[in-house]
């Protein structure tokens, strides 16, 4: 195919390119570098990793981090099991409802977390859900699943748009496949990469979430960061840098996984 549109107005391209490079730099790198430099100044008049070793050697760091990590994994699994079949079904049977469903999945933005938690606690007050540690954990995961819906649904929806859901389903049916086979061998493998991108965002949100975990008195990573911020000087900055590094490491893992599905990444890739 021919290349995109007119080539006359290169100045327009340059203007927008530079604007965005500058905004990007100010947004991402300036604060990051400032935080990094500050975190290295724990020992007066010299740069060093004192703040980092303080953070990493603390058992509270490890405990809260692994608590949030496993909560995130649980959240993602439940969310995927709920949403993949639902989104598939909407694509297959109710394609006209897609704009409506798109809108409904945005509702978690509309109901603030505070309302959600107040409502949940008040509703389940003096039931096993609020009177036991396990019950509160169920409430926590439930809330996180709700928060993850917009991201997970949209990611999976994008993945499903990249394939012809109805024709693939009918082809599999005519070849003798039942619903379980269609889901596991046809639909899931084709939305896997898209699912990963939704899972990644959910992971980042759960790892950083403060309000719900705090209100439900859960030993999560968000409240730990907040506690550290109010009691220490340099350690919070070190922690921010560590979280940032971990996040990018998980991006790397996603990239690596999607490359090992090389044939497929071609398909669910650019549209």
């Amino acid at each position, binding site marked *: 195919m021919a290349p995109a549109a007119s080539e006359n107005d290169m100045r327009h391209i340059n203007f927008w390119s530079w604007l965005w490079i500058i905004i990007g730099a100010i947004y991402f790198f300036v604060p990051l570098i400032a935080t990094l430099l500050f975190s290295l100044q724990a020992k007066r008049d010299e740069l060093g990793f004192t703040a980092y070793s303080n953070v990493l050697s603390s058992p509270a760091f490890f405990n809260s981090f692994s608590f949030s990590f496993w909560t995130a994994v649980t959240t993602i699994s439940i969310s995927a099991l709920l949403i993949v079949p639902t989104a598939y079904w909407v694509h297959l049977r109710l394609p006209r409802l897609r704009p409506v469903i798109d809108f409904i999945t945005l509702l978690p933005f509309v109901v603030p977390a505070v309302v959600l938690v107040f409502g949940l606690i008040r509703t389940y007050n003096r039931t096993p859900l609020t009177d036991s540690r396990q019950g509160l954990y169920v409430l926590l995961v439930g809330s996180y699943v709700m928060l993850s819906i917009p991201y997970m649904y949209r990611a999976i929806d994008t993945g499903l748009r990249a*394939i*012809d859901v109805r*024709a*693939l389903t*009918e*082809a*599999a*049916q*005519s*070849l*003798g*496949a*039942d619903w379980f*086979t269609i889901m596991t*061998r*046809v639909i899931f*493998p*084709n939305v896997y990469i898209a699912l990963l991108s939704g899972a990644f965002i959910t992971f980042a949100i759960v790892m950083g979430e403060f309000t719900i975990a705090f209100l439900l008195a859960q030993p999560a990573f968000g409240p730990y960061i907040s506690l550290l911020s109010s009691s220490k000087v340099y350690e919070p900055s070190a922690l921010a840098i560590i979280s940032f590094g971990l996040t990018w490491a998980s991006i790397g893992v996603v990239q690596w996984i999607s490359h090992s599905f090389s*044939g*497929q990444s*071609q*398909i669910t890739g650019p549209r």
Partner: protein
Amino acid sequence: MAFLEINDVHKIYGQTVVVDTFNLQIEQGEFVSFLGPSGCGKTTTLRMVAGFIVPTSGSIVINAVDVTRMPPNRRNVGMVFQSYALFPNMTVAANVGFGLKVAGQPARAIKQRVAEMLEIIHMTEYATRYPYQLSGGQQQRVALARALAIQPQVLLLDEPLSALDAKIRISLRQEIRTIQRQLNITTIYVTHDQEEALSLSDRIVVMNQGRIEQIGTPFAIYNRPRTRFVASFVGTLNVLTAEVVDAATGRIMIDGQEIHVNGILPDHPDPSLAIALRPEVISLNGVYGQTANHMQGTVEDVTFLGPVVRTRVRFDQHTIHLDSFNTPQLVPPRNGDSVTVSFPPEACLVLSDTPGAEV
């Protein structure tokens, strides 16, 4: 009893009758096309045979088993889609073997059958490719092999060539016909392209607005259309209004020139009737001799279409198109020339407007 029977099938959505009183018997090994414009119900009927849609009433019987309400995955029916519908996460070999794997066949048997199928479609060397690495024509051949691998009782094709380029369309069309004959598989082919239907089919079912207009061999459909719709949908048509001079001897008058048609005309209260003529039966150079009809007219336009030169000739009220082969002998007329066109009486179709009625 026929191999595949569609008995009195209706499909109604709300107020809309999509398929109306569909009856058809197909013999083992027969190639039948459903031909019609979009929205005529041909795809809906095919999808009822495949099991994706349940008829509102009526029954579908394959090989003496009533499958009307059987789910599609138990019908053992092969389906080929316009969009190919290959599984993007699987190689060509895995796509072709999918149905066998689902059926729980041993790996060795699958491998052998896949190799056989790839042989038939001449794509053995593409076994390990992914669908996105293939051209449209190759993808559709893989889809065909995949549908045939399970040895289906019936093969269903839903406009399989519509997404392809003209040249590939013609070569794949021939390949489909060859494979179908080789395997002697009962086939239903849905298309809106008259040339595809005419060149491929043993019989054609012409549909319009949910109803069957005519069922017949390609030759019968083209040369003896039973309704005006069939005559105009299949091929180009000149329609002329004529006045009956003598119904008994078939003498009629068009724009003041008398011609005769074969057979006895309907003894209508209204003495005018519609006559249809195919462009290719009308001759400019009088090959049909003295016994044919002759009419005088003026050339209005000459269009060069490649193999064919199309001439538009005006009489008093009517214009007709006529086709001549572009041979070295051809001297195309010029605009304004006075010409005599001739056509044999048996080439005149007397049209009826009632669907289902004889022309």
